[in-house]
């Protein structure tokens, strides 16, 4: 079997074509594939559709995020559960490009976003959910009553690529996440044709992980790169380090 382990982030993202649909894992810092995002920015693919919980935070210093690809002119459309800041006083780097029309966005409730990718990964084309019924998001869309309750039709969201960050992996691509690092990562891995993982610990030989403890099967993982120590690799920083 060809090795799934790549020597660099640049090699792992080298063949991503223009127009790809890419899921970016992570919720706040945990699970965010900073190194893959940075490599994709350097690689330069254009016309991308990026799927993620947010477009990136408002805080400084900036970490690689969807907005950094938008700024680099690589993104056609964003699909996210936040397309504006949660606090109106925060200024998101994304907002300027969205308001000027340089990038499109589709705003999706977070649970619906997760389930649309879960469905894609599970071979289910569409589903009904009570979420967003009666809101602006449901206007003009198909609903149906089940057990006396109105439900909104939502479609699966398949991905060309998923970028995720895991804590531990073996050579077969079996993954373990640590604490809230898991978030969207397993559903994105399953929704994608090609899942690329940045791994925090050295990759273990196949068989080193307890089969009962694996969160994502290597079936869903095609490429892995180990995150080097800082400053070559990008790691989340603590609040007080961020302030410096």
């Amino acid at each position: 079997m060809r090795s799934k382990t790549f020597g660099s982030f640049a090699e792992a993202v080298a063949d991503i074509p223009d127009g790809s649909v890419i899921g970016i894992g992570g919720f706040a810092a945990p699970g965010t594939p900073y190194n893959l995002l940075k490599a994709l920015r350097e690689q330069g693919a254009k016309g991308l559709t990026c799927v993620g919980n947010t477009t990136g935070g408002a805080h400084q210093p900036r970490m690689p995020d969807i907005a950094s690809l938008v700024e680099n002119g690589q993104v056609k459309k964003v699909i996210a559960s936040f397309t504006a800041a949660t606090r109106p006083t925060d200024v998101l780097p994304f907002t300027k490009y969205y308001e000027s029309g340089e990038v499109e966005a589709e705003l999706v409730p977070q649970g619906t976003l997760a389930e649309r990718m879960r469905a894609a990964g599970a071979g289910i084309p569409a589903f009904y959910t009570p979420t967003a019924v009666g809101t602006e998001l449901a206007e003009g869309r198909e609903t149906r009553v089940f057990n006396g309750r109105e439900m909104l039709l939502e479609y699966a969201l398949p991905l060309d690529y998923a970028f995720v960050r895991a804590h531990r992996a073996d050579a077969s691509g079996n993954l373990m996440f640590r604490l809230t690092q898991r978030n969207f990562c397993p559903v994105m891995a399953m929704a994608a044709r090609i899942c690329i993982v940045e791994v925090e610990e050295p990759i273990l030989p196949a068989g080193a992980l307890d089969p009962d403890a694996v969160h994502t099967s290597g079936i869903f993982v095609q490429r892995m790169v180990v995150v080097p120590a800082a400053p070559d690799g990008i790691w989340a920083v603590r609040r007080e380090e961020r302030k410096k």
Partner: protein
Amino acid sequence: MSGNSVGPIHASARSGAPAKGWDRQQMADRLSEKFQDGWLVNLGVGIPTLCSNTDIGDREITYHSENGLIGYGPVLPAGQEDLHLVNAGGQNVSLRPDSVTVNHADSFAIIRSGRIDVTVMGAYEVAANGDFANWKVAGQKGGGIGGAMDLAACAKRVFIILEHVTRKGAPRLVPSCALPVTARGVVTLVATNYGLFAPTGHGFRVVELAPGMSFEEVRAATGAPLEG
């Protein structure tokens, strides 16, 4: 299932609480008093996170965070954080003996299947019929929904915490929402700096007035009829 043995001190013991009305922690404390033993509680970002500072006594409350964290304790001080562990607001919280992490699809399966006993959220407006708005401000392109629409549509109860009036003095408890709603007819209890209120369909019933607030004063600051 553990109690709140690692919880912080009771917030009302703090100094600096206002002589009139409630401050944010007191608003959160009042709503937290309504949490019943055994409840699974989801706290939204902003003022609702203060509910986890309230001393809940002997009640066993489990906090759920939309990013797949079930059962968590207080925010950890700088230097003690685990960078792999955050709540819905991105704060580095602590684990409890029975904490569990799940993926996002499973986290929202918990929400959508109606297992959350109450979700506590901030809002811009709450209407007399139980509608509320918290994802988009006037004139904004796009919005910030996060997990709010899933939670509002599917939790057994929706409690709202918000300031009674806007910075310009306009009421936030209104006859009907002017802003795009998050969900319709779901709010059962509202905490503001002026008191606790329950939407009745055509107005708001006073459950409790904050210290120093008169009925007349609150009625003048409320956009919908106030019922005693």
